[in-house]
């Protein structure tokens, strides 16, 4: 327990920062209830028309389904690749581990716009050979998202492996378990939580991805963020406010549940 508590000045400054952080999230609520077709504050009467247009306009639903499909596929690819790689690193501790891990983390540290132009080059090159797997296709987007999310999945799995006691693996090895048995029946059950977290984070990152997606899609593979982007650039569609409110509510609920669950775990 820290014995040195923040004083009144610290608390006031922190409260101002907290207000700044929450302000834009709260601001979308009144805008989402405006009866106007354009971005405006509601004057007097409130309306749910923008929430209704999310359901009635097929473009939103199509984009949501596409984003889910891309998120699931790219999360599966990056979790499996990251898991195999991390198991290799942890079980065999090969030479040059630091350099190899550093290489895998590159898409996380390179400025996203550079990754975007790189993946644009890749997918336009593939488009020369294949029409269903390249620029502006959902498979192409899923692959590009895997490149972007795999470093995060790797970090999470490596962190949970680093907390694992090596002696249980040594015991399994001493008792004659094969590499496959050690990986699937000894190590993986012990890092379940890390693997699930990696898959979820990969999905969320893909679901939100816009920087790279803008470079590699044009008219066919319109993911949800891509559709929001189009509505934000031209004339601002208040349906985005309604969608934002829903996404914010989901985020708050998930964080609240997670916080309760971790608290219970800590309690036991």
């Amino acid at each position: 327990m820290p014995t040195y508590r923040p004083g009144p000045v610290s608390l006031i400054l922190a409260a101002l920062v907290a207000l700044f952080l929450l302000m834009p999230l709260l601001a979308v609520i009144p805008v989402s209830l405006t009866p106007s077709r354009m971005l405006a504050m509601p004057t007097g009467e409130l309306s749910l028309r923008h929430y209704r247009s999310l359901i009635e306009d097929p473009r939103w639903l199509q984009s949501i389904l596409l984003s889910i499909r891309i998120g699931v596929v790219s999360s599966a690819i990056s979790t499996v690749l990251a898991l195999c790689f991390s198991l290799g690193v942890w079980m065999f501790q090969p030479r040059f581990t630091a350099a190899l891990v550093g290489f895998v983390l590159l898409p996380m540290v390179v400025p996203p716009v550079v990754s975007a132009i790189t993946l644009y080059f890749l997918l336009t090159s593939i488009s020369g050979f294949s029409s269903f797997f390249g620029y502006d296709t959902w498979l192409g987007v899923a692959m590009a998202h895997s490149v972007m999310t795999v470093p995060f999945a790797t970090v999470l799995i490596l962190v949970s492996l680093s907390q694992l006691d090596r002696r249980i693996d040594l015991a399994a090895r001493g008792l004659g378990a094969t590499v496959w048995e050690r990986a699937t029946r000894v190590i993986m059950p012990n890092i379940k939580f890390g693997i699930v977290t990696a898959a979820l984070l990969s999905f969320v990152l893909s679901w939100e991805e816009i920087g790279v997606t803008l470079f590699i899609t044009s008219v066919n593979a319109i993911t949800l963020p891509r559709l929001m982007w189009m509505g934000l650039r031209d004339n601002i569609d208040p349906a985005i406010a309604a969608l934002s409110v829903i996404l914010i509510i989901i985020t708050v609920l998930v964080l609240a549940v997670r916080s309760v669950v971790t608290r219970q775990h800590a309690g036991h």
Partner: protein
Amino acid sequence: MRGVLSDRMGAALLMAPLLLFLVLAYAWPFLGVVKWSFTLPTPGLGQYQALLTDDLVQSVFIRTLRIAAIVTVVSVAAAYAITVVWVRGSPAQRLVAEFCILVPFWISVLTRAFGWVALLSNRGLINTWLQSIGFISEPLTLVRNEFGVVVGMTHFLIPFAVFPLASAMRSLDDRVLLAARGLGSSRMRTFWTVFVPMTRSGIIGSALIVFVFSLGFFVTPAILGGGRSVMIAELIYLRIFQSPDWGLGAAISVVLVLFVGALMALLFRYVRPKQLI
């Protein structure tokens, strides 16, 4: 068949798929982009010369550095204020601070930029309110300029600035602070002469992370700058998609990577990676 699979082969088999995937889908196309920068539209160093002479490119580079510097100072200071409470506050204060840091952190960059549009635009919350109380007659221009970009980027980057600071503040030994107080130092003086210097590694780490992130920022400046306050990343996008000049876009990307690489090298001279989490 124990023993057939040697350790080295096992490692290779497990690590190969990801390494192969990234070599083919990331390293190879990056080399392709480097090639573009030397061959489009004509082979040679023309694009790099253009970077040094083109006024537009120069002004965008300078604006990017200026915005990144302002955003870094403001974000780290703001993050410091809220991190103090998150790490050292009472349990209730900590819970509130954590909520205010993590909720924005998990919300997409688009939603957050849109929230600022809703607040700052001419018919947005702030202008509507200021006009309704008669404080101003004409709406203030708060967005589609550098102010809007700085506000939006600061908002995005504060949570990222928090984590290295929190790690530095958590590892700080309370007894040193108690000793300072016991020796008669005031709260303020203890904070500035003991607490802040002892979290130096966190401040450096946090500032470098925010600065590096700001350099390659795309979405927030594009939305809140409204095409008037273009930063490097948006310039690359415009060079690829609007005035097709792939060579120049590629050359700017290469320079950006080298610059960020140099900054990262600097970062790891001062801070160990573990201190950043």
